[in-house]
């Protein structure tokens, strides 16, 4: 049984499911628009202090935010499948556990790519400045991060098996990422001690890297550090998710 084919089957199932859910599609597509339209002006109030067009900072930040938080939430879909017996049905087939995980994750990456593209295109329309090649590098970095956090979200869901526990944990992870890694407001405006706390989070370095890439400094240390963190997080997340999927129900 080829793992590639099982992956493709799983990927196609997710895509089909989404295309059927019109409301989900509409909300999913409207989300980036809302963020840009509502949060951009708020950030604009700090424009002088930040020394840049707010969208130049906001779009890369939102890409990372979506890659972290939006991705962790995919675990809820898996929990629903677990409750309906769907995951067990898939796990009793000889399809590789990696394929089951990767197929779902690839779909989430596609989902993130579509939303991300809308974000970037709208960002340009709102006056964002970005380097073409650097933008592509930053975008790919965000997609890799998406894959990582989806794998982690699926792994957590399979391990915890419980909507409530999973929800609490996802919030516990999301909140510091959202507030402390400079996703929406760059940490440069924060007091020193908060910047020190922020520097501990991998996502801080990843956001900085993605911003630097969008600014066109592809060869800068910031991009390299962001890339290394992203790759590190991705490897760790897939090892964790893969093991959680492979391990039986305990």
């Amino acid at each position, binding site marked *: 049984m080829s793992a590639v084919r099982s992956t493709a089957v799983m990927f196609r199932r997710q895509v089909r*499911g989404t295309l059927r859910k019109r409301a989900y599609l509409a909300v999913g597509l409207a989300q980036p628009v809302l963020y840009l339209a509502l949060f951009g002006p708020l950030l604009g109030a700090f424009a002088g202090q930040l020394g840049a067009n707010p969208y130049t900072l906001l779009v890369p930040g939102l890409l990372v935010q979506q890659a972290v938080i939006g991705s962790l939430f995919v675990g809820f879909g898996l929990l629903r*499948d677990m409750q309906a017996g769907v995951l067990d049905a898939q796990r009793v087939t000889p399809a590789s556990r990696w394929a089951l995980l990767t197929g779902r994750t690839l779909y989430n990456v596609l989902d993130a790519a579509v939303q991300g593209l809308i974000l970037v295109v709208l960002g340009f329309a709102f006056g964002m400045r970005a380097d073409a090649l650097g933008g592509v590098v930053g975008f790919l970095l965000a997609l890799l991060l998406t894959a990582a956090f989806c794998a982690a979200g699926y792994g957590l869901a399979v391990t915890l098996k419980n909507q409530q526990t999973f929800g609490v944990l996802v919030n516990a992870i999301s909140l510091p990422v959202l507030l402390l890694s400079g996703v929406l407001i760059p940490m440069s405006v924060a007091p020193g001690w908060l910047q020190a706390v922020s520097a501990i989070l991998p996502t801080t370095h990843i956001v900085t890297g993605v911003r630097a890439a969008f600014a066109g400094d592809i060869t800068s240390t910031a991009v390299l550090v962001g890339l290394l963190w992203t790759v590190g997080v991705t490897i760790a997340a897939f090892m964790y998710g893969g093991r959680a999927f492979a391990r039986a129900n305990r």
Partner: protein
Amino acid sequence: MIRASHLRKIYPDRSRSSPRSQVVAVDDVSFEVAAGEIVGLLGPNGAGKTTTMQMLTTLTRPTSGRAQVAGYDLATQARYVRAAIGYVSQRGSASDDSTVGEELVDYGLLHGLSPTDAFARGRTLAERYRLDDLWDREVGTLSGGQRRRLDIAMSLVHRPRLVFLDEPTVGLDPASRASLWAHVRELRDTSGVTVLLSTHYLDEADALCDRLLVISGGRLIADGPPAQIKRMMGPDTLTVTVPSETELPDLLAVLTDATGEKPEVSGLEVSVRFAGGTGTLAAVLARIDAAALTTASVELRPPSLDEAFFALTSKEVAA
């Protein structure tokens, strides 16, 4: 087809605050199932039926014990086991987000069929399980019975030699249940498929299964054909009906005295456990006669599977 020896499954008990507390879901269960048998796993809620099935279908690792399933070792050849078995979980298999046809084809593909074969096989099964008109329907819109037929059809896409059905008829109306039974029998009769199914319905176990495994509190407490399980219960029930209430006190006295058991009254009917067999029945009748009681009817009945079941499981609880 299945050879399970000393299977045990211990879960950590998440409901208790102490991290050490555990649930022994399945406790030292050993049994065998021969090729072509339809075997019922019977037991009350929480008995360990689902856990036993999940271990045998590679979904949960036994805490200890071994098993051979479809000729493969559960622990070391899980992939081969999966390729040889079908499984319908208590919760179902089909996803609301797919159509009937998509589910049948996708599971064929996951089992390694070529796209052409998966489609052809899906069509055949849809026809056999009366799903062909529903091929393009979204699973979320199916009725309970249609959905269960789909779950079962999905578990058969790869022509498994052994099928596990966890409460396949739960929530089905009598007609759907009967048709599902027919499908299970046909599966065995025409394709030689071995079936292990769990159920709470004793009439179902009685009508469908060649052999029953009764499980309670994680332990296997009986293993045998339905008739034998019923006999394990022991005594028959003697039911005497009288024409009027005035006869009841005397009848009660006579029956208590003659059988040494406490009779139960329901309307004009008095029932008592009767271990003596037909030989002593004459003696009891003679005593009734001697007491000058008139009776409307006297009936001696072997225990129903329900009674056997309650007797077996409550014995277990008391022990």
